[in-house]
């Protein structure tokens, strides 16, 4: 036994073990600190710094101070800064490579704090710069960078009448010109036709012929009718035929004239109505409509709301991969590639199943500008499908500066990674707003100087689709407006109305997918502003109409008057035709006697 056993070896072994333990005790804090910083930096895409880390072995736990997590999109700011975190780990499960924390406290969480030096990783700096550039090119935002919206005031000032008429064509003038030309042409044609038709001269000739025939047969004393005498002689029949031919020609001309006159009459009627149509058309184009004010609230609030949504979506997309298990469920043992090194880890079914990382309960305190918010988070894990419970959170803040109370609660449910279901409810009471700019337009600057109100938000996400509803009511409101040196009457009315508003509300509904969503904003501001300027708009529209009417009438009176004169000349043709027709008919009657 003595031959094979070496007592000194026992001492050497104990010495080596003691050295190893001493090494771990002395350097474990530093090793863990560097390891956490390295892995967290890699996961975040920007530096994660830890101020101080203390590990305790009995019981197993950790205290971490001053954690700074850089915002990858703003390397000089921390997205999150934590004053300190403390927790104990279940030792038995830790030996099985499971980090199960029953209770954790996280203190002094702050958002968007400045950093002393940039937290960008060298590779990431180039990537984020090129990403920003490419986003600017196509205009689509990413990771919280939002498109800056400009507020376009609806066209509230009516332009000058002269400039309107210089731009717009007056159709009644064109109609008058065309009709005048046609009337002149047809008048010319009819004058030629009338020359060919039997006139006074010819009627006189016919009467002379009748007289001649009567004289010829006067000597005969038999009182036979002239007609018989003439008829007997044949001259009568010739004369009658001539008269009837002329009558036919005149009747044909009269028929043609009647048809043409109908057309011209129609066109004259159109011409008479044309100035009115011009006035209505131009008025409709240039007058102020309340339609432009129907959604003014979305112009005030829309860009801001859109920015909030984009930032929230960007953060969700950043955090999501860590809250759900993206590995496919396999039958039998599961292989997992370790982060470094060769080989694979084969994971077998556990009894009971347990996620590799779980924080059962974390109490947090968070500092915001107004004060501090405390809360509880439960069931934070990277494998919610194993735990079978969603992550829940409840935050509350009371008596904050500028806010009476804020309550946030919700749950993040990745139990089925293919069908995530999340919910957030936020209730803010007596939230004070101060000096909030609503419009930077140089003709119409609007700012909300102060207001106090309540906001309720409910947000649901089901698979890739989300729906959100935000309702708010504000009172003790004061708006401040700043207009250009010569604002129009309508802008002045809007400014006056806004100054008198003491309470307002708005509702936002949003929905869609994370990549493509729509936002609808409704507010009683729309109704108030619309009704305030409604009468003014009506007056302004009537004034425009009056001026427009006078200007257009002035321009078209001359040409239209000429056309009417021309038409009267044309009507004379009809009169003449009728007269000649009558004369011919009388001749025929004389023949019958």
């Amino acid at each position: 036994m003595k031959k094979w056993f070496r007592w000194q070896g026992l001492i050497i072994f104990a010495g080596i073990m003691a050295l190893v333990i001493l090494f771990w005790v002395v350097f474990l804090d530093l090793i863990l600190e560097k390891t956490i910083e390295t892995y967290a930096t890699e996961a975040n895409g920007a530096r994660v710094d830890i101020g101080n880390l203390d590990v305790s072995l009995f019981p197993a736990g950790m205290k971490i101070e001053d954690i700074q997590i850089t915002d990858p999109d703003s390397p000089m700011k921390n997205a999150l800064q934590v004053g300190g975190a403390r927790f104990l780990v279940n030792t038995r499960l830790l030996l099985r490579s499971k980090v199960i924390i029953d209770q954790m406290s996280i203190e002094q969480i702050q958002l968007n704090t400045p950093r002393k030096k940039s937290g960008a990783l060298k590779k990431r700096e180039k990537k984020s710069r090129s990403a920003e550039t490419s986003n600017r090119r196509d205009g689509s935002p990413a990771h919280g960078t939002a498109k800056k919206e400009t507020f376009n005031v609806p066209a509230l000032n009516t332009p000058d009448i002269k400039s309107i008429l210089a731009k717009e064509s007056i159709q009644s003038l064109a109609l008058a010109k065309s009709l005048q030309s046609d009337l002149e042409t047809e008048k010319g044609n009819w004058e030629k036709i009338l020359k060919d038709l039997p006139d006074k001269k010819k009627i006189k000739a016919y009467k002379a012929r009748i007289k001649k025939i009567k004289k010829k047969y006067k000597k005969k004393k038999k009182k036979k009718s002239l007609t018989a005498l003439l008829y007997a002689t044949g001259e009568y029949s010739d004369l009658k035929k001539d008269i009837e031919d002329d009558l036919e020609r005149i009747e044909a001309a009269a028929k043609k004239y009647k048809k043409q006159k109908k057309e011209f009459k129609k066109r004259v009627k159109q011409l008479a109505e044309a100035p009115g149509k011009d006035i209505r058309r131009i008025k409709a184009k240039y007058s102020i409509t309340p339609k432009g004010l129907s959604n003014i609230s979305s112009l005030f609030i829309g860009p801001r709301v859109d920015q909030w949504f984009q930032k929230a979506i960007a953060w969700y997309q950043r955090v999501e991969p860590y809250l759900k298990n993206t590995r496919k469920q396999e039958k039998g043992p599961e292989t997992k590639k370790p982060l470094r090194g060769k080989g694979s880890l084969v994971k077998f079914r556990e009894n009971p199943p347990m996620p590799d990382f779980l924080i059962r309960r974390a109490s947090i305190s968070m500092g915001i500008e107004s004060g501090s918010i405390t809360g509880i988070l439960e069931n934070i894990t990277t494998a919610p499908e194993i735990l079978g419970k969603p992550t829940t959170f409840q935050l509350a803040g009371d008596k904050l500066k500028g806010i009476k109370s804020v309550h946030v609660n919700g749950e993040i449910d990745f139990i089925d990674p293919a069908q995530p279901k999340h919910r957030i409810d936020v209730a803010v009471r007596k939230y004070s707003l101060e000096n909030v700019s609503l419009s930077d337009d140089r003709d119409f600057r609007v700012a909300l100087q102060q207001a106090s109100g309540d906001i309720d938000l409910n947000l649901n996400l089901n698979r890739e689709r989300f729906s959100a509803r935000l309702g708010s009511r504000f009172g003790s409101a004061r708006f401040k407006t700043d207009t250009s040196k010569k604002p129009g009457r309508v802008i002045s009315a809007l400014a006056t109305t806004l100054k008198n508003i003491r309470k307002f509300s708005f509702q936002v509904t949003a929905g869609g997918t994370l990549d493509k969503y729509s936002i609808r904003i409704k507010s009683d501001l729309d109704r108030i502003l619309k009704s305030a300027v409604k009468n003014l708009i009506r007056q302004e529209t009537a004034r425009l109409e009056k001026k427009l009417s006078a200007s257009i009438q002035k321009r078209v009176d001359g040409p239209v008057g000429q056309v009417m004169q021309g038409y009267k000349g044309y009507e004379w043709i009809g009169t003449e035709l009728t007269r000649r027709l009558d004369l011919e008919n009388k001749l025929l009657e004389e023949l019958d006697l």
Partner: protein
Amino acid sequence: MIEFIVKILKVLNSETEPGQISLGLCFSMILGLTPLFSIHNILVLFLALVLRVNLSMFLLGFVVFSGLAYLLDPLFHRLGFWILTTGFLESFWTGMYQTTLFRLGNLNHTITMGSLLFSLALFMPFFLVVNYLIRQYREHILAWVLKLKLVQSLRASRLYEIFQSVTAHGRHT
């Protein structure tokens, strides 16, 4: 290089039993082929220190086998993967997986399991083979080596005197 040869020669020419040299090499095989910071290596180290095995060969063997391990890792991975995922052992491994020692020993890692099984399987055969080779060397080759001019000149050198004095000192303790 000279020191290395001297050590080998010292070990081979020492009065240390062949079994002690072989056992040292076998323990170094486990330590060298398996991932260094595995729990089972604490036991191996303990045994190597507490049992009268040849420590020089243990350390030298560790260096050699560590180098070999890089080349054999793909084989160990395949072996470990096969043994851990084979159907008829699944219930066994599932049972073992519930134990802390199995998890602490990282025995569900393919290379750890493959290399451990490999070195344990080779332990006894390797011990017997090395044992036999040492005996054969001492019986048949040692005399021929001592006659070599290089060895004679080494033996005549100052270095060898120091070596002898160390060896002599070691023999007495």
